[in-house]
C-alpha cells in the first residue's frame, strides 16, 4: 500500500509502519507484539479490529490511546502526530476501556461531572452538553443513583455518555461488550452505530464477537502483530469462495446417520440443523437438489449458506475457535 500517495484528509486515523517490541526482563526475553503494521481508518467509518489473543490488537489499542510509545512507526490522528503532539490528538479522542472506567461509588451525575472536569468542561458548557450526552440513554432518570446499582448494560451506557460529553471525533473502544449478556451486547452496538451516524464520529473498536464485526463498515483482522486483512465484511466473506448446504430437520440424529451411511457425507450438527461439508462457490446447488430428492420427507427447510465472518477468521488465522482462545504470541529470542 502506497500510503503517502493517498490524500491524508479522508483518513481520521493513519497508522504507518508501526512496530512494537516489549522490553524483556531478566527472566523473559523481549516480545514482539506489532510488526510493520499499517492501517488507516476513514472519517466517519465504523471499523472493527479483531484477532486472536496475542495478535497485538491490545498493544495497538494502548499505543493508539497514547499510553504506550511504540518501538517504531507513526500514527496521525485527525492530522495531529500522536507522539509529537499528544495533547491535540487526545482532545479529538474518547476511549472506552474493557474494564469499567466509571467509579461505582459515585452517582451517574458525579461520574459525568468528574469526566467533564478532566476535559475542562465547566458549569454552563457541562449543562449544555449533558442533554446531548445522555439524551439517548436509559440512565437520564437515574442520574442520582450510584453506578453500583445499575446493570452491566446501563453502566456501559454511563461510560459511553461520559465519552460523548467531550464531543469526540474519534471513539476508541476496547472489547466494550465484554461481560454483557447477548441482548445488552446487541443493544450497545446498535446504539453505538446510531450515535456514530448522528454525530459523524469515527469508531475503532476491538472485538472478538463475530456478530459485532458483521455490522462494521470494515473489519481488520490481525495475527502475530501483522494485519492479515482489512475490508468490508461482505468482501471478506465472498473472498473465501466457499458455501455449504444447511438442512433443518425434526430428527437430526437419524438423518445424520443416514446421510453418512447412504451418501458418505460427514455432517456437523448444530441443534436441529445439519451442516453438510463446505464446497466451492456454485457447487452447493446440485447438492441441495440431491438432498431434496433423497430426503424430502425429513427436511423442514434447506438452504445454501455463505460463510460467516468467523469462517473467514478461522481461514485467515488458521486457528479454530478453541485455539483462538488459548493462542499467545511466542517470545522472540534475545
Amino acid at each position, binding site marked *: 500500500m502506497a500510503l503517502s500517495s493517498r490524500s491524508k484528509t479522508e483518513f481520521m486515523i493513519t497508522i504507518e509502519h508501526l*512496530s*512494537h*517490541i*516489549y*522490553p*524483556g526482563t531478566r527472566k523473559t*526475553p*523481549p*516480545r*514482539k*507484539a506489532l510488526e510493520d503494521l499499517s492501517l488507516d481508518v476513514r472519517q466517519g467509518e465504523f471499523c472493527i479490529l479483531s484477532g486472536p489473543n496475542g495478535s497485538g490488537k491490545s498493544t495497538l489499542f*494502548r499505543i493508539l*490511546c*497514547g*499510553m*504506550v*510509545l*511504540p*518501538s*517504531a512507526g507513526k500514527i496521525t490522528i485527525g492530522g495531529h502526530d500522536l507522539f509529537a503532539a499528544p*495533547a491535540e490528538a*487526545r*482532545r479529538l*479522542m474518547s*476511549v472506552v*476501556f*474493557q*474494564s*469499567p*472506567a*466509571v*467509579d*461505582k*461509588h*459515585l452517582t451517574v451525575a*458525579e461520574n459525568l*461531572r*468528574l*469526566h467533564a*472536569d*478532566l*476535559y*475542562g468542561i*465547566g458549569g454552563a458548557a457541562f449543562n449544555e452538553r449533558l442533554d446531548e450526552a445522555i439524551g439517548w440513554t436509559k440512565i437520564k432518570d437515574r442520574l442520582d443513583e450510584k453506578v453500583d446499582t445499575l446493570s452491566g448494560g446501563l453502566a456501559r451506557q454511563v461510560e459511553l455518555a*461520559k465519552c460523548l460529553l467531550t464531543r469526540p471525533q474519534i471513539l476508541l473502544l476496547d472489547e466494550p461488550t465484554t461481560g454483557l449478556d447477548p441482548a445488552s451486547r446487541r443493544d450497545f452496538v446498535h446504539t453505538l452505530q446510531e450515535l456514530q451516524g448522528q454525530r459523524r464520529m469515527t469508531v475503532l473498536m476491538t472485538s472478538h464477537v463475530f456478530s459485532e464485526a458483521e455490522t462494521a463498515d470494515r473489519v481488520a483482522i490481525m495475527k502475530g502483530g501483522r494485519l492479515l486483512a482489512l475490508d468490508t465484511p461482505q468482501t471478506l466473506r465472498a473472498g473465501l469462495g466457499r458455501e455449504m448446504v444447511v438442512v433443518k430437520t425434526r430428527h437430526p440424529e437419524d438423518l445424520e446417520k443416514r446421510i453418512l451411511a447412504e451418501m458418505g457425507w460427514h455432517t456437523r450438527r448444530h441443534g436441529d440443523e445439519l451442516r453438510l461439508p463446505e464446497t466451492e462457490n456454485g457447487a452447493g446447488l446440485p447438492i441441495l437438489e440431491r438432498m431434496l430428492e433423497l430426503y424430502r420427507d425429513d427436511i423442514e427447510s434447506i438452504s445454501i449458506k455463505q460463510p460467516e465472518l468467523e469462517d473467514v477468521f478461522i481461514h485467515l488465522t488458521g486457528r479454530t475457535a478453541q485455539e483462538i482462545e488459548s493462542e499467545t504470541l511466542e517470545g*522472540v*529470542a*534475545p
Partner: protein
Amino acid sequence: MMRVAFALARREFVRFMRQPQRVIGTVAQPVLFWLFLGSGFSSSFRAPGMENVSYLEYFYPGVMLMMMLFASIFSSITIIEDRDAGFLQSVLVAPVPRLAIVLGKVFGGTAIALVQTIIFTLAAPFLGLSLGIGTLAMLMAAFVLTSMGFAAMGFFFAWSMRSTAGFHAIMMVFLMPLWMLSGALFPIEQAPFWLHALMTINPVAHALVLLRDPFYLTPSQMLADQRYLVALAVTLAWTGLCLAGSMRRVEKRERGVKSAG
C-alpha cells in the same frame, strides 16, 4: 490544573465518606491505640525533660501522625484499585497535566487525614493542653504539610504496584517503621545508640516536631527555635521530593524497545 486536581480530590473524599466502615476503621483504630497504649504505659513512662507529661499526652501527637499515615496508606491503595478497575486509565488518557493526577490523590488523602486529625484535636483540652489561635494555625499548617508528605510518599510507592498485597509489604516494612521510629511511641533521647541514629535520619521524626511543639510553645518561640526550623525544612524537603518523584513516575510512559536483540 488545580481544577482537575480538586475534582479528583473531591472524588477521593466523597468515596471515602461513602464507605462508613473505612471512616470508622481509620478513626477508631488510632483512637483505640491511643487510649489503650496511652493508659497502659502511663504509670511506667518517664521521659527525660518531660517528667510531668503522661504517656497519654506524650503519645497524643504521635497518634495524629499515625492518622496521617493511615490516610495516606488508604489513599495509596485506591491507586492500585483504580488501576485494576480501569478508572485510572481513563484519567491517564485525558488531556490533563500529570502533576494534577498526583495532586488529586495527594489532596484527597490530605483532606481525609485532616478530617480525622481535626476531630482528634478536640481531645486536647481534656489533656490539659491549650491552643491559642496562632498555635492552632501552626498546628493546622503542620497537619496539611505532613499529610501531603505522607500521601505523596504513599503515591510514590503505590504507583508501580500491581497488587495490594505488594503494597502491604511496603507498608509493613517501610511505612510503619518510619512512624514507629519517629518518636511517636518513645522519645529519641532514651533509645539505644543504633536506634537513636536511625531515628535521627528518619524524616518523619521531624514532622512529629511540627505536630508536638504547638502544644507547648508559642508561635514566636517556635519560629525562633532552630530545632523547629530544621524540622520544618526537612519536612518541606521530603514532601517536595515525594511529590516530584511521584510526578516523574506518572510521566514515565511505557516504551517499546528498538530491537529484540
